[in-house]
């Protein structure tokens, strides 16, 4: 594919990005202030979902611990921002720390040819190690620079400030714009990435690793690459998250959050990028709504959703809707091609 082909394949990506931009500027006029502020958290989580959509949906890497990189990013940002006294470089540090850790872990597992379910177990285990370790770090002995890690209680995250202007902090309602912009940029980046040669090779490796090797592609390197990139994106989500919440605690690494990340991608659909983002917003709204009532237990509802999708909508919402839509519009042989385009959004 040359540049033009990539751009053509990315058409749906731009359409969704445009919708996102419109939403970003319209939302403050249409929604209440608290909704705008709270949306920041949802956006942060959808960046996490996007990163898993990339690494699992496109890379075929069953990463049960994507939330580890998200949390690591949030912690790295918080600790760096406390030490630097400003957020600008801290964001970079967050992305680098998460990506570097992913590269290390990825080297360990991909070059050890650990595959499939075992990979899922290892990534989940790593997440739980973070959970245990960071909970252990209460008290003044555990500090990095000036920042105490805080153990179970977590750390207060410094708010974002204007680039290189450490005295102008952003208000939560303004962090919304930053978050929205970060989401749109990450989305376009991922949409571009999966349509490049690199992205296509990753998708091919997902389909058939041996064949890719037979063609001379070093699948380990490609997996390591997409794993590392996805970790960096997850870290951006983490930075936004701790800004939205104002605090980061080790609970971010717990089993429930690890499950939730998987659920977003399952519900949204593996092999799409916009699906998991949309699913995150939907489920975020749902879990928030569940918090305002006490009839239905939220674990119950989430469990039913997960089972329902695995059994009845295994492809997830976005691909199913696309399939249904194209079947109605073009019953001819073209439908396959359209579906594939749908997949690359």
């Amino acid at each position, binding site marked *: 594919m040359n540049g033009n082909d990539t751009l053509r394949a990315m058409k749906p990506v731009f359409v969704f990005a445009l919708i996102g931009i419109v939403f970003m500027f319209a939302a403050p006029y249409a929604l209440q202030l608290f909704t705008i502020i*709270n949306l920041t958290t949802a956006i942060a989580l959808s960046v996490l979902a996007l990163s898993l959509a990339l690494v699992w949906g496109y890379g075929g890497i069953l990463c049960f611990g994507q939330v580890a990189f998200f949390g690591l990013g949030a912690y790295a940002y918080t600790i760096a921002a406390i030490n630097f006294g400003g957020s600008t470089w801290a964001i970079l540090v967050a992305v680098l720390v998460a990506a570097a850790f992913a590269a290390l872990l990825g080297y360990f597992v991909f070059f050890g040819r650990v595959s499939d379910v075992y990979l899922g177990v290892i990534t989940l285990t790593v997440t739980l190690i973070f959970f245990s370790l960071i909970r252990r770090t209460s008290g003044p002995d555990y500090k990095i620079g000036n920042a105490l890690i805080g153990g*179970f209680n*977590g750390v207060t995250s410094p708010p974002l400030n204007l680039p290189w202007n450490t005295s102008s902090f952003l208000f939560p309602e303004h962090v919304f714009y930053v978050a929205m912009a970060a989401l749109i940029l990450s989305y376009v980046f991922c949409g571009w990435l999966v349509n490049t040669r690199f992205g296509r090779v990753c998708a091919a490796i997902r389909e058939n690793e041996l064949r890719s090797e037979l063609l001379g592609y070093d699948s380990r390197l490609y997996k390591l690459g997409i794993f590392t990139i996805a970790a960096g994106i997850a870290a951006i989500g983490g930075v936004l998250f701790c800004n939205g*919440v104002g605090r980061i605690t080790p609970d971010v690494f717990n089993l429930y959050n690890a499950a939730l990340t998987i659920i977003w991608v399952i519900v949204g659909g593996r092999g799409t990028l916009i699906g998991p983002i949309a699913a995150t917003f939907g489920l975020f709204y749902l879990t928030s709504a569940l918090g305002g009532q006490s009839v239905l237990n939220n674990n119950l509802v989430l469990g039913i959703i997960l089972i329902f999708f695995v059994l009845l909508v295994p492809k997830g919402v976005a691909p199913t809707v696309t399939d249904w839509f194209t079947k109605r519009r073009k019953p001819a042989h073209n439908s396959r091609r359209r579906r594939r385009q749908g997949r690359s959004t």
Partner: protein
Amino acid sequence: MTLSRRDFVMGTSALALTAPATIARAQSDNINFASILDLSGGLDIYGAPMAETTRLAIEDINAAGGLLGREVELKMYDAQSTIQFYTQFATQAAAGDKAATVHAGITSASREAIRPTLARFKTLYFYNTQYEGGVCDYNNFCTGSTPAQTVAKVVPYAMNKWGKKVYIVAADYNYGQITAQWMQKFVADNGGETLDVEFFPLDVTNFGPTINKIQTAKPDMVISALVGGAHVSFYRQYAAAGMLKEIPIASTTFGVGNEQKLISAEEGNGIIASYGYFEGVDNSANKNFLARLEAKLGADRPVMNELAIRSYEGAMLWAEAVKAAGTIDREPVIEALRSGLSYDGPSGKVTIDSQTNHCSMNVYIGELANQEWNIVESFDNQPPADTQLVCDLNANPNQSTFLFENGLEAAGIK
């Protein structure tokens, strides 16, 4: 809309706050009272009774004709043991519901997540949980007991009874560590010796190795600041190893999640604990309260503990302040509270300490027998001495910090 630099920065906040998002909600005449507690997830054993008493408090206020002639409406949110929901619901309660007051939080982490949000939206905040102390915030009233109030009483009592050598087991987080530090201080102050202090992550269930260590150390007693459902295993395993009859246990945390009901009578008999409330508190307000609770929830109502009672009393303190101020506006209500307001509740008389925005309260020592606490000693009107060491809102009201966040030493104690 152009995003100029001006729009982004804090300087123009007041404008930005009100500018775009002004679609007014249908405002009813009710006064909104928001409660955010963990009613599901791992912390619901604490949150559920607190929610019940909060409901009862609002009912009582409305039954007495509401406040200022208006009805009080309870907006209750379940934070699902997740910090992000605290921030989220606090924002919603303050900016969306325009709540007159928000009573929220169980863990210190949850309180620290919402405190800045509510300070920003200038919404009065009550934290009704016993905790490690150290919050120094003009906008935030902490009604629960702190270690200096309870540990200071139970340690000498137990040492008198059992002996001078103490082994401390505590939950491994800020609360447990600070409480353990106070325990060590009071043990030393009373001429005792701390043999060892051990901390346990909140999900540990196997206490076998520790029980061996305790057997090796041979203390006169064990003082526990273990917290949460998993740590209940300690008491079971301790009793199962036959230790309870040899080396007794005192605690400042056992019972706060009604742990005495989670273990059997034999596993708990003789454990001593200290709180600002036990069901056996002998006053008419308490008897009346328990009777109404039972009428409302039936005989299988949750057992009342300090957390649940403070939730009730916190709401009542606020109601008293509103009556005194004659308005629900934040500033006058805070001033009314800080004028040394007191309320005679089920736990006895609680008085706001204006130096710290904490409460002076009665402290009780209870001994467990057949899953019930018998009050063996009580102390009237104990001040929040620990927070008083570091916080003075009278001298400097413009504060909003958690001074013990990084431990006692960082706050300059010891």
